[in-house]
């Protein structure tokens, strides 16, 4: 696949994939390595990383294994990042796709609605939603998705709109294929590549978003996430800065890796094909 090729031919791409694979494997293996979950008090609190190899990343303020917490944190952060991106891409694609493909009144109505969502300050709205519906994985995902779909909708609309005017779409419509079918088989696949690039960006944003919410204490209290770890370790930052530093670094590296891959994907797209209609 050309996307993989373009990622793996750049050195930072290889590094990014490697880091993400590590994060992903950590997330997947967490329950196997720490079947008791991340919350178990395992040892003396505030152990430094790399001292006791049974707890390679040390322990936190309550003596919980940081390695376990980081791995479960990867689960939450990556999971929420992916799920909320999927939800908002689906939402944005549906709204934007319908608006762009049907045009006319439907379009202006949907775009007004989208505009309204963009008028509301993102972070404030997310806080509000979570505060109103009390913090849980679901409310966090809903909040992130609700604030992130409008840019997807706009992009999808622009793509659908321009593709709709493309001659191959018109030809398909003329030849008697139904509009629904044309939207799905002709327009959608061609609208996907910019959306994929955007989705990569959104996974990063969602991870950052979730971390900020957890940091403020608005994450699901029953799961560990990297943002939660930063917030929790903030209390002890002057004595044990590494407890704050490690989860922050994990977020940073993950987001950097995803961005690099996003860049690589967007580089891999045939620029000739994409540029032309945008004029």
């Amino acid at each position: 696949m050309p996307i993989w090729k373009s990622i793996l031919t750049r050195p930072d791409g290889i590094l990014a994939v490697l880091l993400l694979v590590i994060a992903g494997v950590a997330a997947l293996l967490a329950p196997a390595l720490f079947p008791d979950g991340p919350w178990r008090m395992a040892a003396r609190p505030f152990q430094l990383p790399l001292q006791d190899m049974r707890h390679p990343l040390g322990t936190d303020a309550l003596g919980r294994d940081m390695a376990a917490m980081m791995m479960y944190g990867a689960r939450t952060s990556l999971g929420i990042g992916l799920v909320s991106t999927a939800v908002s891409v689906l939402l944005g694609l549906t709204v934007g796709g319908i608006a762009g493909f049907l045009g006319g009144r439907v379009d202006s109505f949907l775009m007004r609605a989208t505009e309204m969502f963009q008028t509301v300050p993102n972070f404030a709205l997310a806080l509000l939603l979570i505060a109103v519906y009390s913090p849980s994985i679901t409310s966090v995902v809903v909040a992130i998705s609700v604030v992130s779909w409008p840019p997807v909708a706009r992009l999808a609309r622009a793509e659908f709109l321009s593709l709709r005017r493309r001659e191959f779409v018109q030809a398909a419509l003329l030849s008697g294929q139904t509009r629904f079918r044309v939207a799905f088989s002709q327009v959608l696949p061609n609208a996907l590549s910019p959306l994929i690039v955007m989705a990569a960006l959104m996974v990063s944003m969602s991870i950052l978003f979730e971390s900020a919410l957890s940091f403020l204490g608005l994450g699901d209290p029953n799961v560990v996430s990297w943002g939660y770890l930063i917030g929790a370790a903030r209390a002890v930052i002057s004595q044990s800065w590494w407890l704050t530093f490690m989860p922050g670094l994990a977020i940073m590296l993950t987001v950097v890796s995803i961005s690099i891959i996003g860049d690589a994907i967007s580089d891999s797209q045939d620029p000739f094909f994409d540029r032309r209609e945008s004029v």
Partner: protein
Amino acid sequence: MARTILSETLKRIIVLVLVITATFLLVRSAPGDPAEFIAGESASGDPAFIEALRARMGLDKPLIVQLGIYLGDVAVLDLGMSYREGRPVLDMILERLPNTLILAGTAFVMALVMGTAAGFTAAVFRGTWIDRVISLGSVLFFASPYYWVALLAIILFSAKLGWLPSGGTQTIGAGYEGARAVLDYIHHLIMPATASALFTMAIYARLVRASMTDVANTLFVKAAHAKGMVPGRVWFRHVLRTSLLPITTMAGVQAGQLVAGTILTETVFAWPGIGRLMYDSLVARDYNVVIGVFIVTSLIVILANLVVDLLYRFVDPRTRAA
């Protein structure tokens, strides 16, 4: 011209009304009402007491009536009373708004100037190590949760080095006046503003670099070179000038979001602005304040967009014609 401004303004007012309505309904759909909260905080669970509070706050009326009353009040710039402080919400917001505007404004300008400069440099030196360093820097800033950077900065610059104050807007009790007070304020502003700016700055740098690279490949840039223009001038007068279009759009979106984004910075740096007011009020269920801050921030976003639209007319002559 006047007509377009009028209709644009009207459109935005409608959006604002919808935002207010939606927020009002959303907030009111939350479990627990302010009367219960006040009763709780003052340690009284007496149902009669709660009922009396409700009646006094108008919470016993049907929701739609409450909404109507509220919208009417907002129209005359009355955002209601804070349940907790018993003061007009507008006053509470106005006394904190300048701090937020200064913080967000400084962060915005920093982000814009530094981001554009970085993106510009990267685009000009595209493919060289300078480009790589800038790109790496912007990707790192983009990826670092800025509250995290802020925490680390406090530890380093306040706790360890003692260079910068850890929070607040002024040295309390120092009684500075005049220029000294301004300097003191700026001294307090440095860290929060920089921390809030990082993320946006990274976004600009990336955007500017990408859009300048795009523009640099256009025919009119080639034509400018063919005129014999000095390359530096081509970069400034043609490439940068034309790249201002996407930058302006992005700036409009970001300016408003920065205001909301200060919630985190204001909390970490004890900066008394409306972001923190919103968070505190949210936790305390002080509905009127929450909605009030929401309206004000939305208004700021709307105004920012309006400004951007006007700027657009300046930056892109094509829009001026229509």
